[in-house]
């Protein structure tokens, strides 16, 4: 479990807004590959109307309020008073060293873990009382949680398509196979694939329900630079086409700089700094986000005087 320690006293109340949103689609509507690739980002100034029937019409994809997780009274809190808001279409990076609270935070956002206190509202649904409605509109990918490896890629995607109540499932799988270049190994057991192929399959599973909120935990871990770049491009294309909000936990700082408009730096369960990658780099007087990360992780940093 997460290691946590003394409070740093730095506050974590951030309000993140983007200038673009999306025109949400009906729950089961799917995008053609061409549309996924070419649909321009739509700007609504955050005032997004929701087309999904019976779904809350909200501008914020995610609202996290005073989130705390303590695994035992005699242990430091794994997450300690986390606050942030994530607009539709935004991509936020969740950074921190091992034990900073990233995994615990993501597990709470997914309903896999019950917070000790605080509140999470995902796509307008309170995760404490209405998490299944939110989960139907979200998805998740992590290289550390496998898909069943003895059944084929197509069977895996079929299983998750049914679990997420995707209509027109065969068509959706064909679209994803074409978009993510899975066609050649669609009928091979998932366990026989290379790391790069598995990552693409995991991404296809994460996109099977055309999520409005996507949580990605180190989506390019252990991939070679070429495959990693390919995966990042696919994520960017999906975001551009759909306006999906993405929360990205990663140790790859170049990836975060490329994908994220805003970064939350976690340490001992608290947000100790935040801002756009460019703002953080400038504030710390560094050349890149990796150096900023090291400064914060090692406690050696002194923010540059404005």
């Amino acid at each position, binding site marked *: *479990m997460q290691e946590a320690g003394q409070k740093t006293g730095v506050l974590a109340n951030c309000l993140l807004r983007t200038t673009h949103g999306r025109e949400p689609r009906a729950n089961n509507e799917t995008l053609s590959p061409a549309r996924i690739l070419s649909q321009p980002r739509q700007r609504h100034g955050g005032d997004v109307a929701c087309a999904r029937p019976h779904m809350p019409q909200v501008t914020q994809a995610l609202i996290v309020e005073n989130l705390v997780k303590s*695994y035992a009274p005699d242990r430091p809190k794994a997450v300690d008073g986390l606050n942030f808001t994530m607009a539709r279409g935004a991509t936020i990076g969740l950074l921190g060293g091992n034990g900073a609270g990233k*995994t*615990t935070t993501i*597990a709470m956002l*997914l*309903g*896999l*873990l*019950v917070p000790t206190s605080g509140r999470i509202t995902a796509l307008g649904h309170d995760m404490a009382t209405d998490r*299944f*409605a939110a*989960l*139907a509109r*979200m998805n*998740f990918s*992590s290289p550390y*949680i*496998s*898909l*069943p*490896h*003895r*059944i*084929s890629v197509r*069977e895996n995607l*079929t*299983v*998750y*398509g*049914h*679990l*997420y*109540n995707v209509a027109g499932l065969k068509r959706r799988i064909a679209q994803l196979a074409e978009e993510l270049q899975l066609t050649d190994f669609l009928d091979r*057991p998932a366990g026989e694939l290379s790391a790069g192929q598995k990552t693409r399959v995991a991404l296809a*599973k994460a996109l099977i329900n055309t999520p409005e909120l996507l949580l990605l935990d180190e989506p390019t871990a252990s991939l070679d630079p070429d495959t990693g770049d390919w995966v990042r491009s696919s994520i960017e294309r999906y975001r551009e086409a759909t306006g999906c909000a993405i929360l990205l936990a990663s140790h790859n700082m170049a990836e975060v700089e490329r994908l994220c408009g805003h970064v939350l730096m976690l340490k001992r369960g608290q947000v100790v700094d935040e801002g756009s990658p460019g703002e953080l780099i400038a504030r710390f007087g560094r050349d890149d986000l990796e150096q900023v990360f090291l400064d914060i992780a090692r406690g050696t940093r002194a923010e540059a005087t404005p």
Partner: protein
Amino acid sequence: MTPSLQRVWGLVYRHLALYRRSPPRLIELMYWPILQMIVWGFMTAYLAGLQNNVASAAAGVLLGGVLLWEAALRSQMGFSISFLEEIWSRNLGHIFVSPLRPGELVAGLMVMSVLRTVVGVVPAILLAWLLYAFNVFDMGPAMVFFFAALILMGWAVALGCTSLILRYGAGAESLAWSVLFGIAPFAAVFYPVSVLPGWLQPVALALPAAHVFEGMRAALMEGRVAWGHLAAAYALNAAWIAAMGWLFMRQFQSARVRGALLNIGE
């Protein structure tokens, strides 16, 4: 298909796809029930003097006991092992963050339990008829109710087992194979409840299986349907499934609080 049924089907489809790609798993389902039936078939033939053409109800009672007990065993294992398959494949993380409700997960495991039981027990029933001329259907239509009652009991035990796996992690997985063997002595599979010591009889009578096997003996030896025992078996099943279902939900919620779902396969 309703959204809920579609999600249940998704889980069932995942397991059917697994069996389609793994013939050894399919064969393993039939292997033990057939082996049990053959061993007990020869034993009852020997004990009852069947080789001297002496008809014996005892042979039917023993073989009937073996076949019916296999239904309970396969039902429980079908449920528990299907759950364990998700742990072994480290797939639980994906399942629990999907819109699949815990009740739907249980429903999917129950469907798999029935399918595994049918695949495992039907060949053994057919072989009992071919090899020993024992037709389990001689018990009459009530036999269907006996089998169903034992499948229900298997679900209750499996819910308890799965709850312990949620509580103690994969370290408790051996229960999936062993727990019903521990119950067998009190379930009156091969002997009447009256054989047990007086203090143990209430324990036996709290188990649906004891009523099923008393009913089976009444059908085979007296040619009557013991409706009282059958009703008791179903009433007890309802109570046990409700209790174990409650325990499962409690342990599931507790696992969400403790963070156990994050590393249940560790």
